[in-house]
C-alpha cells in the first residue's frame, strides 16, 4: 500500500514538473517570459537557471512565425523558439534558440533589434543547486544607406537551497547603432538587472524581486534617458485537490515606475493582481487549465502630471490545454480566436474552436 502511494505521488510530481511552455504559463496567469515563482515549469529557468537541475532532458519547440522582425513575442504573434536541455554527468546543459529579448520601442525608431538570440545554460548540484546562463545576440545590416547593427549580452545566475531560491539576471549590454535616418543614432541599454528570490514555507511560496532598467535613446544628437523599476512582493500557493487536479492562487504587490529623466518625468503604476487558477487532468491524454486574473484593491497609474487613473478592465480569463502522449506533450492556449478564426487583440469571444484547436502551441519531448 505504502509503495502504491509512493508511486502515485511520484507520478503526480512527474506530471506537474514535465510541462514546459509559454502557453501553460499564460493559461495559469504567470509570466511566459520568465515563468513562475511558485509553479513548477521549465520556463522558470529563464528566471532562475538553477532550476535546470529539476527540469532537464527534454527538447521544446515553441511554434510561431519566423518573420517577426524585431517584434516582441506575444500571444497573438508568437515567435518561433526552442531549445534542448540535457543531463551530462553531474552537470546539466542547455541551448535555447530564438529568445530575442524585447523590442523596447526600437522597431518604431528603425533600429535593428536583437535577432537570432542564443542562450546557453549550465547547472549543477553541489548540495546547493546552482545554474548560470549566457545570452548573446548579434545582427548587422549594411545594405541600406545607413549601416545598422545590434549586439546584446546577458548573464543569469541562480541558486536553489532547500525551500529557498535566489537569482540575478543582468543585461550587460543591448546596443543598437544606426537607424534608418542616421548612423550616429543609437539605442543603448545600460546594465540592467532583475534580482529576486523566494521561500517556500509550509505550502505557500513567498517571493520578492526588484527589476531596474535604464536606457539611452539618441536621435539626431539628442539623448533621452529612460529608467524604469519594479518591486514585486507576493505569495503563491498550489493546492493539490487530488492527484489529478490542482488549484493555484497568488497575489502580489507591484510598485513600478517609468521615468523619462531627460524630459517629461515619471509615471508610476501600483497594483495588486490576484490570480485564481486550476489545472486538471481531464483524461489520461488531456490536461485542461485556466485562470482568472484581476487587480484587487490597488490598480492605478499616476501620470507625469500627478493625475491618477484606475487601470481599467484588468479582469482577464486565460485557458489552455495539454495533449498528453506520454513523453510528448503538446501545450497550447485555447479560446484565443473568435468565431471567424481571427486572432486579434479583441478576438477573445468565449469561443472553444475545434478549427483552431490550440494557439501559441509549444511541444516538449522528454527523454
Amino acid at each position, binding site marked *: 500500500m505504502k509503495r502504491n502511494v509512493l508511486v502515485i505521488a511520484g507520478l503526480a510530481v512527474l506530471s506537474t514538473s514535465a510541462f514546459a511552455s509559454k502557453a501553460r504559463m499564460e493559461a495559469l496567469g504567470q509570466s511566459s517570459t520568465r515563468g513562475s515563482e511558485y509553479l513548477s515549469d521549465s520556463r522558470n529557468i529563464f528566471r532562475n537557471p538553477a532550476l535546470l537541475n529539476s527540469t532537464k532532458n527534454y527538447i521544446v*519547440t515553441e511554434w*510561431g512565425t519566423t518573420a517577426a522582425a524585431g517584434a516582441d513575442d506575444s500571444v497573438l504573434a508568437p515567435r518561433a523558439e526552442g531549445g534542448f536541455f540535457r543531463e551530462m554527468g553531474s552537470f546539466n546543459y542547455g541551448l535555447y*534558440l530564438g529568445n530575442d529579448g524585447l523590442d523596447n520601442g526600437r522597431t518604431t525608431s528603425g533600429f535593428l533589434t536583437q535577432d537570432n538570440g542564443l542562450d546557453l545554460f549550465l547547472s549543477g548540484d553541489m548540495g546547493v543547486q546552482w545554474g548560470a546562463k549566457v545570452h548573446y545576440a548579434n545582427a548587422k545590416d549594411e545594405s541600406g544607406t545607413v549601416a545598422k547593427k545590434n549586439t546584446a549580452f546577458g548573464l543569469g545566475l541562480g541558486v536553489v537551497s532547500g525551500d529557498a531560491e535566489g537569482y540575478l539576471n543582468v543585461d550587460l549590454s543591448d546596443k543598437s547603432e544606426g537607424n534608418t535616418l542616421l548612423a550616429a543614432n543609437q539605442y543603448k541599454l545600460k546594465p540592467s538587472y532583475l534580482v529576486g528570490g523566494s521561500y517556500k514555507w509550509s505550502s505557500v511560496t513567498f517571493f520578492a524581486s526588484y527589476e531596474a532598467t535604464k536606457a539611452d535613446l539618441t536621435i539626431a544628437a539628442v539623448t533621452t534617458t529612460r529608467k524604469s523599476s519594479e518591486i514585486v512582493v507576493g505569495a503563491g500557493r498550489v493546492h493539490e485537490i487530488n492527484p489529478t487536479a490542482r488549484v493555484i492562487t497568488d497575489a502580489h504587490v507591484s510598485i513600478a515606475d517609468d521615468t523619462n529623466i531627460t524630459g517629461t518625468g515619471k509615471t508610476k503604476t501600483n497594483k495588486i493582481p490576484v490570480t485564481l487558477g486550476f489545472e486538471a487532468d481531464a483524461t489520461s491524454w488531456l490536461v485542461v487549465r485556466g485562470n482568472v486574473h484581476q487587480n484587487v484593491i490597488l490598480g492605478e497609474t499616476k501620470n507625469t502630471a500627478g493625475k491618477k487613473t484606475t487601470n481599467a478592465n484588468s479582469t482577464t480569463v486565460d485557458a489552455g490545454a495539454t495533449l498528453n*502522449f506520454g513523453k510528448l506533450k503538446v501545450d497550447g492556449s485555447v479560446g484565443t480566436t473568435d468565431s471567424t478564426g*481571427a*486572432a486579434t487583440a479583441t478576438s477573445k469571444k468565449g469561443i472553444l474552436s475545434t478549427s483552431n484547436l490550440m*494557439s501559441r502551441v509549444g511541444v516538449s519531448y522528454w527523454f
Partner: protein
Amino acid sequence: MKKIMMIGSALIVLSSSAFASQARLLALGMNETDNEGMYYISDSRNIFLNVANINLYPNQAEFDWGSTGQDASITGTPSPSNSTLISSTSPKAQGGAFKKYGEYVFGLYYGNESNTSSLLRVAGTSAASSLNFSGATPSSKMLQTADNQIDVFFGGDNGTKWAVNGLYSAGKDESRNSKDSAYTVRGGLIGANWDTHLNLSLGSKSSSNETINHAALGLGTTTVAQEFKGKFGVHAGGSYLLDEKNRIFGYVKHYGWEQSDSYNNYAALKAAGAGTFGTFSGQNGTIKGDFTSYYLGWGRDFDVNNGDKLFASLAAKKTEINLNYTTKTEVRTLVIPLVLGYEAKATDWLTLRGSVVQNIYGTKDNKKEENLNPVAKSLIALNYGANGKSTIANSTAVNAGATLVFDQLSIDGLIGAVGPTGTNGSKKGILSASNLETSVGLTYKY
C-alpha cells in the same frame, strides 16, 4: 532473450526507416533548395540525394499531394508568385513507386521538378519578356521550366548498395514558339559506414521566340528570342559514419549556363516607366552565369525512450551565384544552421515530430540584383536576401509534423503551418483541426 533483443532492434530500425516524405524531413529541419533529402536522417526522400537509397525502400509507392504546378505565364505584378518554385506553402503533386524484382530494385517517379533548375531558368528569362506590359497589369512571359519530369531508377545490392537514375523532362508550346528539355543522370553507392553520390546534369535548355507587348508603356509589340542553355552541372557528395551515430557529410553543387536575350530597347523600356515594377537593367545579348554551393556538416541521432529519436546537426553552407552582366551580379551567402529535432511515437497510429533551426552564423553579401529581371530579382531576394551586406535576419524556425499510421499506409504532413484563418504558411503557433496536415505525403508499403 538475445533473440528478442535482436527482433526489438530490427523493429526500431524498421520504424525509423519506414517514413517517407518531404513533409517529414521538412518537419525535421531540411532546408535544401530542391528538398532532396538529408544525409543523417533515414527517409525515402533521400533517393533524390543518393539514388542508392532505393535499396532501403524497395517496395512502396509514395504520393506527395499538391497542385499541378504553376503556369510559366502569370498575369500580375512580377513577383516570386510568377515563379514555379515548389515550397511547403505551394507543394507540387509528385509521386512514384518502387519494386524489388529478384536482386534488383526498379522505380518510377513523376513530377520531381528541380527548384534550382526553375530558379536558374527564371533568372535566365529576358527582363522585357518578364514584364510584357500590354494591359492594366504585366503578364509575365517566363521561360518554360522543367515539366512532366520522369525519373527512372535501377539499383541493387552486392554488399555495397548501388543505383542509377535517369531523369528526363521535355515540353513545348508552339503558340509561344517555346520549348524546354532536361536530362540528368544520378549514381550512388552506400557502404557499411559511408555513402557517396554523383549527380550530373547533362543538359538543360529552355527557349522561346515570341511576341511581347508593351503597349501600356507606349512601346508596342516586338519579338523576343531568348534562351537558357545549361552547361555541365554536378552535384557530388557523400557522408561518413565516424562511429555508431556521428556522421559527417558534405557536397558540392555547381551549375553553369548561358542565357541570351534579343530585346535591344531596354533604355526606352525603362524610360517609359517599366521600373515601376522594380529597378532592373536587362541586357541584350548573351551572358554566362554559374551557381555553386558548398556544404559541410555533422549530424547524428540519439535513441531515446525505446524507439524515439532526437536529432542534431551543425553544418556550414556557402552559396555563390554569378551572372556576368556588364556589371556583375553576385549572390554570396554563408550560413551555419544548428538543427535540433525530435520524432516520437505518440500512439500506435500517430507519430509526432518537430525541430527548431537557427543560424549560429549567417551572412549575405549580394550585389547588383537589379540586373535581373523583376521576377528573378524578387525570387532571389526571397531565397538569398536583397542587395547589400548583412546578417541573415530571423533565421529561427520551428517546424512540426505528424504521421498517421494505418498499417502499411502512412499519411505524413506538416502541422502548425497554417494561420488562425487557415492561410497556409502563415505560422502563428496554431494547431488547426480544420487543416489537420499540410504538404501531405502518402506512402503505401507492399
